[in-house]
């Protein structure tokens, strides 16, 4: 089969590789219908995530059709149309049974690597480095899904591949950001106007927000947040964010600040950006924290900072004093896909949510490398590129 493989920093190639097979009794094989890029993939492509090996198949946000099931798969059959959560959960450990699927004890065969880095193993993620399990990703014609009964969710009739694709990752991530923090009446500020940020905006409204503000520097993405998400917008390259947020919140600051950017944050302060980027490039600081810093500074006293942007390890110059003296709550995590997907598919069915506007470019798998380049450079008003392995 064809698959998009990581072969080094900013080196992606489509290769011909063997088809996947059932390796454990709870596995299923899915023929991939659509597989989307994700902002967190850019950390992989740009070389910020350790433990990648040349030849790794990437991609973690996908849907498709079941073509084969292992002997212990009970809920799926051949032909089922499913959307698959990006995070892999065994369903039986303490964390999975408490709906904290991204903290699964058992799905990561490289638990020893994570114990070294995080102290404890966490759930595996498709196509996201050997630290996160080393599972082959979804930018391919077929993919093997372990613990398939937990990870695959049947797409309701009448919902298309395009509509359901982002329920694999972007929607539950944005929804979790809001679910962890937003209370009715809150003013919510979202840093990052990409796929996840857009879904955080939608989710904030669903959770009863009274006003949603989006911060980014790409006007075309801010326009989408305004038109599709009814959000107020702030372009951080043009205005002072902290002042603008005070203006929009009666001087109090937002109740909830969502970080949907993560470790490759940019800053309007050139000195801050240079400091972070140089330290990062010299391997003195793995992650850039400018969005996290700003969110903590902006948040109202007693408010909540909700972090779903991906970080890998340490950041420098963390505003701990501001956090502590303002009595902030920090909520965070990789998304608990299996917890949220059933509810999100219901919302899709009821017509209360339609994420398909995120899919700005549907391209063949062969265009994988160009797709990521466009997504990274944010050209052609790109929001998300999805690869269709069946397209020529």
């Amino acid at each position: 089969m064809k698959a998009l493989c990581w072969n080094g920093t900013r080196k992606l190639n489509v290769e011909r590789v063997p088809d996947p097979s059932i390796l454990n009794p709870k596995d299923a094989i899915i023929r991939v219908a659509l597989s989307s890029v994700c902002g967190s993939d850019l950390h992989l492509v740009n070389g910020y995530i350790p433990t990648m090996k040349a030849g790794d198949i990437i991609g973690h946000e996908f849907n498709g059709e079941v073509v084969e099931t292992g002997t212990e798969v009970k809920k799926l059959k051949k032909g089922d149309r499913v959307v698959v959560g990006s995070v892999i959960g065994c369903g039986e450990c303490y964390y999975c049974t408490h709906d904290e699927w991204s903290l699964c004890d058992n799905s990561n065969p490289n638990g020893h690597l994570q114990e070294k880095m995080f102290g404890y193993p966490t759930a595996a993620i498709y196509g996201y480095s050997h630290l996160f399990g080393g599972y082959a990703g979804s930018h391919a014609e077929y993919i093997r899904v372990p613990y398939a009964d937990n990870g695959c969710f049947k797409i309701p009739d009448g919902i298309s591949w395009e509509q359901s694709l982002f329920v694999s990752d972007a929607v539950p991530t944005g929804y979790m950001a809001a679910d962890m923090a937003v209370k009715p009446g809150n003013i919510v500020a979202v840093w990052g106007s990409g796929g996840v940020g857009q879904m955080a905006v939608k989710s904030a409204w669903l959770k009863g927000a009274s006003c949603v503000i989006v911060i980014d520097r790409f006007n075309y993405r801010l326009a989408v947040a305004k038109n599709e998400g009814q959000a107020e917008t702030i372009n951080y390259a043009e205005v002072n964010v902290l002042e603008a947020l005070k203006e929009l919140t009666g001087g109090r600051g937002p109740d909830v600040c969502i970080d949907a950017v993560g470790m490759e944050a940019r800053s309007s302060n050139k000195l801050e950006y240079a400091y972070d980027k140089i330290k990062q490039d010299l391997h003195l600081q793995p992650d850039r924290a400018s969005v996290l810093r700003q969110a903590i500074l902006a948040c109202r006293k007693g408010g909540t900072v909700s972090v779903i942007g991906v970080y890998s390890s340490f950041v420098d110059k963390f505003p701990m004093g501001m956090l502590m003296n303002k009595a902030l709550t920090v909520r965070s995590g990789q998304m608990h896909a299996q917890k949220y997907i059933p509810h999100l598919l219901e919302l899709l069915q009821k017509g209360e949510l339609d994420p398909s506007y995120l899919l700005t470019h549907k391209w063949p798998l062969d265009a994988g490398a160009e797709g990521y380049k466009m997504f990274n450079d944010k050209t052609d008003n790109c929001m998300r590129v999805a690869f269709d392995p069946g397209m020529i």
Partner: protein
Amino acid sequence: MNENASRRTKPALNVSNTERIISAVAGGYLLCNAIAGGKGRLLKTGAGAFLLYRAISGNCPVYSALRKSPLADPVKNITVRTLITVNKPRKEVYAFWRNLENLPLFMKHLKTVQTMDNGRSHWEANIPGLPGPVSWDAEIVKEEDGSLLKWNSLPGATIDNAGKVMFSDAGENGTEVRILITYRAPLGPAGEGIARLLNPLFKTMIKEDLRNFRSYIESGEIPTTKGQPSGRETVSALS
């Protein structure tokens, strides 16, 4: 043989080699100084003697009092102590371990364990650092239903070893499993250095075994990616 044998005869080593050398030099200097005369002879003699004692014996009573943990036993033992919490009730976890034939399902270094009558069993394993598989007979020396399992290899075993597993409740539905395994390396004086090198390897292996155990007893399978596709084995475009 049991894991406490070497510790009964002398106090625990808790001073590292580098520190012992520094103590010896400092202690020797202080004693010489004390003998040469001058102020504070009693203090220097006392301090010098104390430092020399800890240098020669390798045991510092002050560290012991402060509970500085003993260094790995240098007498040819590979000892691993580790623990894990499992999301299954204690009786179920105990019953699984009590059937020693289950152990190779998740302990990768064990090839087979065959239980025989009267609590005895025959084991075959690949021990890291030794060429080829090793086998021995063992017996359960102590068991407390639901909480403790202890086994020793029988005299005449190629490789002396002992294992102890303790089970205690963890919250609503869980079990804390604490394991202690010791292997006595069968090599001569060279064994001491090798054992020290192999200990961390062995500990990593046992920790992995326990993770596999948790996976197996909770979800019924051990996660793997062996055999999955990647760009490292490409296929000709014509096939």
